[in-house]
């Protein structure tokens, strides 16, 4: 069943490629159908998932794939993968709906939708993969479609942004695959993640540290962590709305997911060694991203930089190596997916209405398109971590966790991080409200006074409502997510805790 969730989109893409180019309605309908079907599978998974055993892999498939290098087609989901999987499914559907009647230029729905479906396969696969090589393949599979999405349908500077995004990520994954192979040889000649988790601890410390470095490069660039983040603003700014939404909502999560799923459980020892540095980069990212935001003139770019800050919180949570921290991280991933995804949607809609995202030229959105304005306001508050909305549960527990990181980590170091991170929340409020004020408050600038601004229209409503509901629901009932992830996280941290108890 899980395989269906992975393969359905790509099959759909192939069929789509066969459909006539001219008949746009059919193309869109088909794409929507496929994504919905996939989401349907997702719903089935949600229902059939045994939450009592959310710590173990479920819906596992484990068949021979490449015996030569002893790599198997091994997939399965646990409490951590499930939410991410659902997230990517939902986002894709919404993106198809959103782009329903305004495809970016050059107008070529067929290619665009095919890419979107390919992307979904890649994302779903990554979240389900339980074999390093398989993971790698899916991890990379998302590169090409996103490259073309940015490069073909992007903004004026798209080619630069696209190739930059591509090169960065590829550089990371080149080192990552080396690390994977090192794991293969050091970890008992297998790429199977569960097996490696079982045996990973046996690898010598220095070796672990080296391998972890490789993995780190791979994942950190994807996250992206300071100082590997510079591809992100360009990619986001240039990408078409849907592209940035998927990029922000799901693709960035691949990196953090990699940390949680692979790096930490397999190499707990190295994780202990690296955690302080990861934490450092994380908090730098938090402050740095905030400063970056304050310096922006472009709405979308600002949101992009805010992602750097938010992922900083996620990484901080991970760096604590505690159950609290990593739960927070997973929550943060989902929350950021929903919220920042929303923000990019809005930025796109604003762009579409005003043909500019330049904050200084905008203003009085609340007067011209009240609903859009209020939604923006809502998302801003969600994004700055307002309690009662999803964002808070990503930030607060992360900060909480860094008060008392995993045993064996320097207390004072992480408490310093805690303080810095919490100051970061103020910055977050700063730049987001500043943006809100410039964009939504005040009155329209003269150049747009006359122009009629269409308020939210139907596809936008359909595409956004689920996200907004999700933000509120998760904000009020965080346990919706926590009770899924918790057990799985304890599995992740088990290695670290064993180390701690061994000390």
């Amino acid at each position, binding site marked *: 069943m899980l395989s269906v969730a992975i393969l359905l989109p790509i099959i759909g893409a192939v069929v789509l490629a066969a459909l006539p180019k001219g008949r746009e309605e059919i193309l869109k309908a088909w794409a929507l159908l496929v994504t919905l079907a996939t989401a349907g599978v997702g719903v089935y998974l949600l229902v059939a998932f045994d939450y009592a055993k959310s710590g173990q892999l479920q819906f596992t498939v484990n068949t021979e794939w490449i015996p030569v290098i002893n790599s198997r087609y091994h997939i399965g989901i646990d409490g951590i993968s499930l939410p991410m999987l659902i997230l990517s499914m939902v986002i894709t559907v919404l993106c198809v709906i959103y782009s329903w009647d305004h495809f970016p230029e050059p107008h070529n729905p067929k290619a665009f939708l095919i890419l979107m479906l390919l992307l979904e396969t890649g994302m779903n696969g990554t979240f389900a993969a339980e074999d390093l090589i398989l993971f790698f393949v899916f991890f990379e599979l998302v590169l090409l479609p996103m490259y073309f999405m940015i490069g073909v349908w992007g903004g004026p500077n798209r080619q630069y942004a696209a190739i*930059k995004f591509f*090169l*960065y990520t590829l550089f990371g994954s080149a080192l990552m695959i080396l690390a994977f192979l090192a794991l293969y040889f050091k970890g008992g000649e297998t790429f199977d993640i569960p097996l490696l988790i079982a045996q990973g601890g046996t690898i010598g410390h220095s070796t672990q540290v080296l391998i972890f470095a490789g993995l780190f490069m791979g994942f950190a660039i994807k996250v992206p962590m300071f*100082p590997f*983040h*510079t591809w992100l603003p360009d990619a986001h700014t240039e990408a078409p709305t849907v592209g940035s939404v998927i990029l922000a909502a799901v693709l960035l999560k691949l990196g953090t997911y990699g940390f949680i799923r692979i790096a930490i459980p397999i190499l707990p020892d190295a994780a202990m060694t690296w955690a302080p540095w990861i934490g450092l980069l994380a908090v730098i990212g938090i402050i*740095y991203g*905030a*400063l*970056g*935001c*304050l*310096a*922006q003139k472009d709405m979308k770019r600002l949101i992009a930089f805010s992602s750097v800050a938010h992922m900083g919180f996620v990484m901080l949570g991970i760096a604590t190596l*505690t*159950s*609290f921290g990593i*739960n927070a991280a997973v929550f943060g991933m989902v929350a950021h997916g929903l919220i920042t995804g929303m923000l990019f949607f809005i930025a796109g809609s604003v762009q579409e209405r005003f043909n500019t995202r330049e904050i200084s030229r905008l203003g*009085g959105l*609340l*007067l011209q398109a009240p609903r859009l304005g209020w939604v923006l306001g809502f998302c801003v*508050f969600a994004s700055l971590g*307002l*309690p*009662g909305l999803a964002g*808070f549960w990503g930030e*607060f*527990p992360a*900060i*909480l966790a860094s*008060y*008392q990181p995993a045993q064996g980590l320097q207390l004072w170091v992480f408490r310093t991080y*805690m*303080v810095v991170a*919490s*100051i970061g*929340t*103020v*910055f977050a*409020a*700063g730049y987001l*409200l*500043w943006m809100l*004020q410039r964009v*939504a*408050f*005040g*009155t329209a600038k003269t150049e747009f006074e006359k122009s009629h601004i269409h308020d939210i229209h139907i596809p936008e409503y359909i595409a956004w409502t689920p996200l907004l509901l999700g933000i509120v629901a998760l904000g009020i*009932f*965080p*346990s919706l997510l*926590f*009770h899924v992830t*918790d057990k799985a*996280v*304890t599995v992740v941290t088990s290695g670290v805790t064993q180390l701690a108890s061994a000390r």
Partner: protein
Amino acid sequence: MLENAWLIPLIPAISFVVILAFGKRLPAKGAEVGIGAIGVSFVLAMVAVVQWVGRDEPREAVERHLTWWKVGGVDIGAGIHVDGLTVMMLVVVTFISLLVQVYSTGYMEGDRRYTYFFAALSLFTASMLMLVVADNTLQLLVGWELVGVCSFMLIGHWWEEEANSSAAIKAFLTTRTGDVGLMLGVITLFFAAGQNFDIANLNRMAINGDISHGLLLTGAALLFLGVMGKSAQFPLHVWLPDAMAGPTPVSALIHAATMVVAGVYLVARIYGVFWSGFSIGDGGINLIAIIGGITVIIAAALAFVQDDIKKVLAYSTISQLGYMVMALGVGAWTAGVFHLFTHAFFKALLFLGSGSLIHAVHSNNMSEMGGMRKKMPTTFWTFMVGSMALAGIPPLAGFWSKDEIINGASHGFELFMVVGLLGAFMTAAYMTRAVYLVFFGEYRGHAHPHESPPAMAWPLKILGVLSVVGGLVGTAIVGDTWRFAHWMRFDVPGAKEIVEEHAFNLPVATLSVAVGLIGIGIAAGYYLRNMFPRGAAEKSGLVRLGYKVLVNKYYLDNLYIDGIVRTIQYPIAKAAYWINQNVIDGVVNGVGIGTRKTAQVVYDVVDQKVIDGAVNGAGFTAEEGGIVLRQTQTGRVQTYAAVLFGASALIAVGLVLFT
């Protein structure tokens, strides 16, 4: 009702959703929903009070909670903790909110975002109530942030003007800066209490010394940072005056009666931590008291030099909050809470009064008012009552609570008693000034003032009454069971009693009243008398001659006034105000601007040049390398051949040597 106190916040929450959804389509644009809901909540709150007071001794706090979420075996609960403090707050919040909403139907009439306004009020009330009933610090934090947002929305209600939205942002950011402290404090105490947010448990452990003093001190200090932000304590008070940009009812509800006292409430609620953290029990001075004391004086001084009536009230609010904080700082828990209680009434009254004035003259500036006595009698009388209550004239509400504070300070905190008295003096003085400038003399504005509509008048009257009698709850008059101090106690099950009561102390009382009266006297004398020579100056030279002596007399008078009062009031106050605007406020704004600037630099230099540059540089060098290497491809076959043979021979030699 005590068990189901969670209903009280829930109802306004629902009304918020309802108004948001259907408000615009309703006949009264959603106002009725809001008022109805809050009315119900108010009734329930009253029931709760009665039930609480009716409980037999010793009154055990009612606790109920359920698991909210659960991580790594730690389960975080959500629940309610109802005791005297809670019910008192419930009543105050619901009641003031009710009146304010009623008042707003008049005040906000025809506003373009009338419905949103009521929705926001409902949301605010809900969050505030939730904060009040919270039984754990996390939940409290949630409510705390939510009220902050509501205040943001309401301050910026008229966001068409940038000034307003900026004020809103300033308010939000300043408080949030404090909240960093709060959040960290909550976290510290969470771990200190063994991964537990529960407040009662926290108090118990704190008092019984189950938590190391160091941790407690840290936690308390951090929490207090949050308090300073929310309750506008020096030096984080700067946002409150700007917050006056919001509609006046909002100022009355949020920035006078309820939200700003959240800080005080927090201290009172988690008093155990502060008490042992700052070892208040040992007497002497401590952070809370100091900050409170400073705030009292500074704010009061600032209130002198304001022209904007709401600003006067704002500073007065700050100073009064200072009183409360100081009270808690000197261990006078009951007194502090009591002052919170009474202050809610008369300050709300004053704000609503000023609101009705502004409504009438379409200006905040007292320089454009004057002579309102005749034009707006209701407003005048109620305002007078409010001012006198604030000035602490017996037997009005303010007197009892303020006296209790000063009285409390007199036991081991004499310094702060002095502060309290000085504060009382200044309070009386600046209120008199305000009252004079507004209600006496000639009308200096251009509008045509008229009495406000009943929707606005009635709340004033009600509050007026309460400002008169509200304080009596603190006395034996109401009977022992109903006496405030009787059902309003800070007692933690399983921990020793830490708050001791102080009997009513006549000398202190008289003293405080005295300074109050002196304050009024001087101010009144200064403002009222000063008129005559000016008036006389208009007359002919003859008269001027005849007046010589009188004038001379008043030379003295003026001399005295100028010599003393001015030197006391103006320069100091002016200086204080200057410092306030340019130093403290400047710092706050400066921080904002500075951050933006650094951000710009960081972005332009570090991000775009250094980091991005490094990467692009790598690419560039690669390209350069390509260009250079291309030169080797000369296109001449014999060069290639030379390379072929040369390389072969070279490598040969190399290999031979190194193998």
